[in-house]
C-alpha cells in the first residue's frame, strides 16, 4: 500500500470494496483495530466526562448526560446519511455490498435515535420540568425515528433480496428528501426551547457553545461514538454478506 493515500488512490480502492471478498478481507483486517480504538476513545471520553469534570453551576451533575446525548444524536443523523448513500450507490452501481451496508446502518441509527431521545427526556425532566416538549429539535428526532422504522419494516416485509433492495433504496432516497423537508416544516411550526447546537464546526475552527472543560471529553466521546458506529456497521455488514453467501451456497447445493 502506498504511504500517500490521496484521493487518487482512495476512490479506486473504495469501489473495490464493493466486491464482497475484498470487503470481507479489509473489514476483517481493520475491525480489531477499530474495536480497540472504540474502547479507548469511548472509555476515556466517558470516564473523563462523568468523573473528572466538575458539575455545572446551574444544571448540576445532570449536565453529564451530554456525553451520551450529543454523540448519539450525531450518529443518529449520520447513520441515516450512510443509509442514503449506500442506497444511492446500489441504485447506480448495482453492487450488493453497498445496499447491505445501508441495511446494516438502519438499526444502529434507529437505536441511536432512541438513545438520543431517551437521554434527552431524562435530562429534560429536571431542567425543563418535563420529559417531553414539542420542540422542533425533539420533534425532528421523533420523525427521524419514524423514517428509520419504515425503512426497517420494508426490509422485513419482502423476501426477494434484489427486489427489496431496490424498494428500500427508493424509500431511503425519497425519505431523505421528506425528512429534510419535515425538519424545516417543524422549525416553522414551533420555535423551540432547545438550546443551540452544542458543537458546531465551521471553517475548520471549533466554535464552542459550552466551555472547553466539557468540550474536550465531549469531543472524545463523539469520536468514540463514531468509531462505535463504524464497528457495529462493519459487523452488521459482514453478517449480511455472510447471510447472502449462505443463500447463494444453499442455492448452489440445491442445483447439484
Amino acid at each position, binding site marked *: 500500500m502506498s504511504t500517500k493515500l490521496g484521493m487518487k488512490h482512495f476512490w479506486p480502492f473504495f469501489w473495490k470494496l464493493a466486491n464482497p471478498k475484498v470487503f470481507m478481507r479489509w473489514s476483517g483486517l481493520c475491525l480489531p483495530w477499530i474495536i480497540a480504538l472504540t474502547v479507548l476513545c469511548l472509555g476515556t471520553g466517558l470516564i473523563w466526562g462523568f468523573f473528572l469534570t466538575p458539575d455545572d453551576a446551574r444544571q448540576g451533575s445532570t449536565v453529564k448526560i451530554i456525553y451520551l446525548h450529543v454523540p448519539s444524536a450525531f450518529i443518529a443523523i449520520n447513520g441515516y446519511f450512510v443509509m442514503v448513500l449506500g442506497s444511492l450507490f446500489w441504485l447506480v452501481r448495482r453492487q450488493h455490498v453497498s445496499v447491505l451496508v445501508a441495511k446494516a446502518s438502519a438499526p444502529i441509527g434507529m437505536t441511536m435515535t432512541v438513545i438520543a431521545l431517551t437521554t434527552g427526556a431524562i435530562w429534560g425532566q429536571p431542567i425543563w420540568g418535563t420529559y417531553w416538549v414539542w420542540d422542533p429539535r425533539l420533534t425532528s428526532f421523533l*420523525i427521524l425515528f419514524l423514517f428509520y422504522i419504515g425503512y426497517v419494516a420494508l426490509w422485513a416485509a419482502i423476501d426477494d433480496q434484489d427486489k427489496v433492495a431496490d424498494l428500500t433504496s427508493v424509500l431511503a432516497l*425519497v425519505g431523505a428528501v421528506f425528512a429534510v423537508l*419535515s425538519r424545516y416544516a417543524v422549525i416553522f411550526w414551533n420555535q423551540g426551547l432547545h438550546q443551540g447546537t452544542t458543537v458546531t464546526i465551521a471553517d475548520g475552527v471549533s466554535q464552542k457553545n459550552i466551555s472547553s472543560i466539557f468540550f474536550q471529553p465531549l469531543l472524545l466521546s463523539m469520536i468514540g461514538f463514531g468509531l462505535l458506529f463504524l464497528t457495529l456497521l462493519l459487523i452488521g455488514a459482514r453478517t449480511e454478506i455472510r447471510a447472502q453467501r449462505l443463500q447463494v451456497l444453499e442455492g448452489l447445493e440445491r442445483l447439484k
Partner: protein
Amino acid sequence: MIQLFTRDVVLSVRSGGGFGLALVFFLILVVLMPFALGPDQSVLAKIAPGLLWLGALLACLLSSDRIFGMDYEDGTLELLATSPLPLESVYLAKAAAHWFTTGLPLSLAAPVFGILLNLNLEVGGVLCLSLLLGTPALSLIGSFGATLTLGVRRGGLLLSLLVLPLYIPTLIFGALTVNAAALGKELDGSLIPILAITLGAIAILPFFSAMALRANLQ
C-alpha cells in the same frame, strides 16, 4: 394518460370502492370527534382546522392501497408496463384519478363538515383552499407508498407506516394555514409551501415510483 385517468375514475365510481367510502369515513371521523372531546362549541372551533386536516389525510391514506392493488392482482399492471405508456405516466394518471375521486370531494366537503365542529364559513373557505392545494400531494405520496408495498400481502398497515411520516410536512403547513386563518390572520402567502410540496411531489415522485413499480414487476 388521459384514458387511464378516465378509466380509473370510472372504475372507482362504478365499484363504489373509493369514491364514496373515503368521504363517508371522513364524515364519521368528524362525527366521532365531539364524542371524544365533549360538545363545548368553543373547544371544537379551536381544534376544528387541525381535526379536519387530519381527517382528510387519514381518509386519503385509507383508500391509497387500492390505487395499484387491483391492477397488480388482475394483471393489468403488467400489460400497462409493456404498453407504450411510460410507468411514470401510469403513476401520475393513477395518482390524479385518486385525487379526483378522494382529495377533491374531501376538500369540497371539509367546510360543510366543519359546520358540525363550529368552524365558521370564512375559515372553511381557507380550509377548502388549503386542502385543494395539499390533497394532490397526499395522493401523490400515497400512490408512491402503494408502489412500494405492491407485492406485500396485507400491505395496508405497512403502507400507512411508510406513508404517514411522509405526510408530515404537508400536514404541518396545511393545518398551520387554517389555524392562522382561524385566529383572524391574513393568508400572506402561507399557501405557497403547500403548493410547493405538491409541485415538488409531481417533480420527483413519478421517477421513484416508476423505479419501484419496475422492481415489483420483476
